[in-house]
């Protein structure tokens, strides 16, 4: 027993002697923290209108850890930041403020961080990413340097990105509508294969886009996004083609019918868990386009 005690003492002394060699240093010191000083009018505007107002940090100055090491990106030009802020306020935030329960929903679900990138995201594998988000905590807007709300192609890219990514916050917090995965169960593509489909093939499977076929979560987000920003959503995805006899036509109508069923399920679920009407939000968005 004594020998054991002596061994313990010896180990303790050695341990103490070694641990005592390390100077006390704070490990919570950020060595790569971006400067958060409010240097400019733009920074003050962001602080007042986004950070304090909604708890949403706007990152427009380049910090490499905002993107993956395999992604090559640039920051936006300074002059494009304010127009981009105006754009997201008008087309993303304000529609929620316009509808019953929308403001409360928006404030409770807003991502903590918005990242602006000047161009697109160039990946090491040669592909290009148009927009991205990180588990509801961060939404990344690409191609901010080309900011032009009157350019429909650019506008649709941005709106599709933000509505899509924000829609993820709903199923992440409240799950998908009941049995949502089963509505078009056979239409989903295997991992990484969604891009082998074209729009028409996706529609025939009951999806608003090829990317929607990649998983039920993406299906949910894509359907919400397209419903919000596409002024011809019904004509493009819901209304059945009359006098349908050819195989291609009946396949498409089957797909349209499936989208209609899924949209109804999403709408019901969305209003039930968030208190916000999907249709009202669409109207608020469309009135601005």
């Amino acid at each position: 027993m004594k020998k054991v005690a002596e061994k313990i003492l010896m180990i303790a002394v050695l341990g103490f002697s070694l641990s005592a060699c390390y100077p006390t240093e704070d490990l919570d010191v950020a060595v790569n923290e971006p400067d958060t000083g409010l240097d400019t009018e733009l920074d003050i505007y962001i602080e007042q209108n986004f950070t304090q107002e909604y708890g949403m940090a706007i990152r427009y100055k380049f910090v490499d850890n905002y993107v993956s090491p395999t992604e090559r990106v640039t920051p936006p030009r300074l002059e494009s930041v304010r127009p981009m802020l105006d754009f997201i306020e008008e087309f993303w935030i304000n529609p929620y403020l316009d509808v019953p329960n929308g403001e409360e929903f928006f404030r409770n679900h807003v991502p903590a961080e918005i990242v602006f990138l000047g161009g697109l995201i160039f990946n090491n594998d040669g592909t290009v990413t148009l927009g991205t988000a990180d588990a509801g905590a961060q939404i990344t807007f690409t191609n901010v340097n080309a900011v032009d709300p009157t350019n429909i192609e650019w506008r649709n890219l941005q709106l599709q990105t933000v509505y899509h990514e924000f829609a993820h916050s709903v199923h992440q917090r409240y799950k998908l509508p009941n049995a949502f995965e089963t509505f078009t169960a056979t239409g989903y593509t295997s991992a990484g294969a969604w891009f082998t489909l074209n729009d028409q093939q996706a529609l025939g499977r009951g999806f608003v886009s090829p990317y929607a076929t990649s998983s039920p979560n993406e299906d949910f987000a894509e359907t919400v996004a397209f419903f919000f920003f596409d002024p011809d959503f019904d004509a493009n995805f819901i209304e059945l083609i009359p006098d349908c006899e050819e195989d291609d036509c009946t396949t498409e109508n089957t797909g349209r019918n499936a989208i209609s069923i899924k949209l109804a399920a999403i709408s019901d679920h969305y209003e039930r868990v968030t208190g916000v009407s999907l249709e009202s939000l669409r109207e608020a968005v469309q009135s601005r386009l």
Partner: protein
Amino acid sequence: MKKLYPFLLLVLVLGCQFNDDPKLPPVEERVSDAIEEMEDLLVDPGNGWRIDYRPNDLGGDYLILLDFDRQGNVRIQSDIGANDGEFRDHIVPYRIDVGQGVELVLETYGVFHYLFELNQTSFGGEFEFIFNEEQNGDLVFDSKSDGSVIIFQRAIGNEASQISIETISLLEESFFRAPVEALVGNFVPYNMYLEDVDATVSITMDLDLRRMKIHGIASGQSINDILTNPMRTEIDHSTVFSISGGSINLAESTNLSFGGKNLTFSSIPIENLEKTTFSFCEDFVDSLANFSSSNVPTLGNIELTSSLAATHTLFEPGNSSSVNPASIFDEDDGQTISDQISAQFPDVVAFQWYYGQPLNDGSTLTALGWVTVDELNNVDFILRECELIKQGNLITINWTGTFFREESLSQEQMDGATDLLDLIFEGGQVYMLDALVQEGLSEFYNPCNRVKSFILL
């Protein structure tokens, strides 16, 4: 055990003698000091810094001047005329980070980011610089992306006057065709007429990449001379260049004896711009830029004119190439015509050139056409035989009326394929233009309908 007690006491007493220097300040102070030291270095020169910036070995030099202040901003002047001159003089915020080393980050979009993004970020530009060392007053940085070295030299004071803004503006007048798409650069063919020897030198310059190729020289001045005059010599000299002092300055000059005179190509003045017109197809009039200079050393009086015609091309019999249909463009709207192709001719995966392709029976095949792959992965070809007549870089296509095709193709598919070939080669002639971003990459350009695409020879 008791014998060990003195040893244990010794360990306790001496154990900390191997500690770090007790005078070493805490990490946050060291970080702050490193940032401050870097900032002191950056703001120190009264005239700022000069970079002769060459992002990659394929391209030439850009002159960039930097002037840092202590408020976190840097004024950047450059001789890059892109985006309507946005990068000639601009201010962006900068930040000094301490991560793997001391890093200088240019935080919002400017000229370095423009160079970074060129060619889908493969151009070699950088906007994150890792400080390496101070060397005889210069600051040596490493590119964070590829480790290449970037040297900030102390500016003397008159460098801004060396930025040849006017020269670059003049050169931009040369773009009579719409800018070509990403990955193939921004190149312009020129013809330089040398009055003293009554001959024309064909040159292609990529003004973004700052690279040029001198193709060859032919007697005479007219387009017909350039394309057909038998008195011609191939030069095939490639070099990068810089722009300063009102001239394009070749990094590597070249010499040639022609018409009894020794010619040295080392510098080409860009001055006395006159706009002129020429019709490369009878339905169109193209606006060309013409620069003229007198008494250029060894060259005499010269006229440099943007053009489509060149004395030589890489396109030779034996060349065969596949083209992705998505890379066939209508220059008027900048869009690919792949939808048009797939609408008329579904399952097409490639547009195919065969130019004097040797066959097993000893004959050769010259044909243009399409490759398709159906749902069962059956590969089919539909090729339309033709005769290709090459004059300089002008290719004339004469269809023979013979088709080579798999029997499974329907008449409707054949008609669709034929219509598409007629569309692409409307007028029956295309110019082969060397793109300089990659050896062997050529653009074929139809001046009658502005359809173009790229083939790797």
